[in-house]
């Protein structure tokens, strides 16, 4: 187990180098100068421009800039945003709960719908149930998030008026953030209707963001279930006289879940990537929206730091999925 952990953690090092190098280079490949953009239409005095360039270190050769950046990062310093002048880490931490809340709800939606639907498709293989589940999930998988989000907004927000179009909560409510999670904060605030409002704001973005993971989970569950249902131990379970609910829901599902959990873990990366688009569509004040704005402003430190932090989160999640995998699969747990 310890060796397993050490190898996994050792693998994080090349990933770290790759992520920092890639974001550093990519950002600078986008045309545009952060200082000029900051100055806006009025323009900037050449002396002041040179002064600012030195201040931010943009006058040094790229390799030196990268070296300085890495040294800072290793000391835990992600720098300050050029635009807001606040530390990148602080900005990230204030916005991150909103993204977690959205991603978590999207994932819960994807699992709660994807698992049962995949099980039904697997158990009722070849029936109309199976075909419709597979057809719909393939459509969901290939649906561009942007288009899908707008479609849902037009239908539910504009035409039916069931859900709000954007934001995390209605402007009628104001309270201080305690946990950063709107669902919890709105409850804590004690204001009537605040929680309802927070929930209604979450519904559409969660569905949009959860659609692709849902499709992936449903398909994986189905194929895993199909495979497991042919196994000898499922026949044994039936030979014991167990009711079908127990045969499928316990004996088959427990084994079928093993690959599904891995897939769910891998979807976390997909989810955070999708959050960038979803947050933009729904003006959701999270990391995704912040990163997009930072791109527009060429806010190099914010982008570098933000992407690095997102990458670290994804890696940590994948690591815990690996650990969880050992937990649900006894054959791995006991292997030394």
């Amino acid at each position, binding site marked *: 187990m310890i060796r397993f952990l050490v190898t996994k953690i050792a693998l994080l090092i090349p990933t770290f180098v790759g992520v920092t190098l890639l974001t550093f280079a990519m950002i600078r490949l986008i045309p545009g100068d952060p200082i000029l953009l900051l100055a806006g239409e009025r323009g900037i005095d050449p002396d002041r421009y040179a002064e600012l360039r030195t201040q931010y270190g943009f006058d040094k050769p790229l390799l030196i800039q990268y070296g300085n950046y890495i040294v800072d990062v290793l000391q835990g310093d992600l720098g300050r945003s050029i635009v807001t002048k606040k530390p990148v880490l602080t900005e990230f931490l204030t916005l991150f709960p909103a993204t977690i809340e959205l991603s978590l709800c999207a994932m819960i939606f994807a699992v709660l719908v994807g698992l049962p639907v995949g099980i039904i498709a697997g158990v009722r293989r070849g029936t109309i149930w199976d075909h419709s589940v597979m057809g719909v999930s393939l459509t969901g998988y290939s649906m561009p998030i942007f288009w899908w989000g707008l479609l849902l907004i037009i239908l539910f927000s504009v035409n039916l008026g069931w859900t709000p179009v954007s934001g995390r909560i209605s402007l009628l409510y104001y309270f201080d953030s305690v946990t950063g999670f709107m669902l919890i904060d709105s409850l804590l605030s004690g204001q009537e209707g605040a929680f309802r409002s927070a929930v209604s704001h979450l519904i559409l973005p969660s569905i949009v963001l959860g659609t692709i993971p849902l499709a992936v989970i449903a398909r994986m569950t189905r194929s895993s279930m199909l495979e497991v249902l042919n196994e000898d131990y499922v*026949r*044994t379970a*039936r030979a014991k006289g167990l009711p079908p609910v127990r045969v499928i829901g316990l004996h088959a599902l427990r084994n079928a879940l093993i690959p599904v959990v891995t897939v769910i873990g891998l979807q976390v990366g997909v989810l955070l990537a999708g959050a960038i688009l979803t947050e933009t569509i729904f003006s959701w004040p999270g990391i995704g929206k912040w990163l997009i704005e930072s791109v527009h402003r060429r806010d190099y430190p914010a982008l570098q730091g933000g992407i690095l932090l997102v990458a670290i989160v994804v890696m940590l999640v994948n690591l815990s999925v690996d650990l969880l995998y050992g937990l649900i699969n*006894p054959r791995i747990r*006991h292997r030394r």
Partner: protein
Amino acid sequence: MAALVEIRNLSVEFQTARGSFRAVDGIDLTIEAGEVVGIVGESGSGKSVSMLALMGLIVWPGKVQADRLTFDGHDLLAMTPAQRRRIIGKDIAMVFQEPITSLNPCFTVGFQIMETLAVHEGGSRADRRRRTVELLGQVGIPAPESRLSSFPHQLSGGMNQRVMIAMAIACNPRLLIADEPTTALDVTIQAQILDLLVNLQQDRGMALTLITHDMGVVAETAERVIVMYAGQQVEEQPVDALFANPAHPYTAALLDALPERSAGRRRLATIPGVVPGIEDRPRGCLFHPRCRFAEQRCVDEQPLLVPDARGRFVRCHYALVDGEPTNKEPGSIRGEPQRETTP
């Protein structure tokens, strides 16, 4: 009193891409309480499928049909699935061929045995635990207490098969079906497992159906033998009579393949050809292409499973007596297929 199990004209068909395939074709079988019945036949002859049909374990695309299928006088075919599940695993239990894949890798052996007890007998958790330890002891697992929390992959094949047997006998079944319980095990372990099954059968007075393709095992354990070929039952006799005087040429060929019966021959006898599959099912007697006594009638007309002149149930027009076909019409000899034996 009614027999424990009565099966009349049981067939199982599988719907495949190339049409339907009869894996089991008209089996008649009666099992009396406390009796040991052997079912023998080559691989693919439908031994497992026919017993799975009795258990109600044939799933889509398989289809089971029978004129009569009863357990202890109760009509299994007329039961609801829930009623049938009360019998399966309790009164009729089955041990499978592959012990390692037949146990669920995600649950401990203790859990898997206790689950059977919970479904059929209820009782308190402590009770079930005590019973399980007892059962593991009965099937010869050392330190049964400490084995409760083992996962199947932590045990050897032989130990897993003992766990399977413990699970099968947990609710004191009246019929235990053992489907080639030793095929996947080492030779030394095979004898131990067979001994265990026979001892359990005698101690508990339960009926035992032993599926095997090993005639030697049948000779040692069974009282009555069913011989199957290509989904059909070709012969049924008490074990001594069968070994002394096989009536069907296929049985005779199987016996000839036994090493202890090949005294004086340098090579073991083999049966030329293979069991017909879905594509090449012959007309007439299914065995005729491989039978060294086959006549024109065997090609034209399918024999029925009826008692011959000596009262033996055999599916052959010319049932053997002392190795020679009987009631042949003179002058109808077809060319003999070669035997693959050196004299």
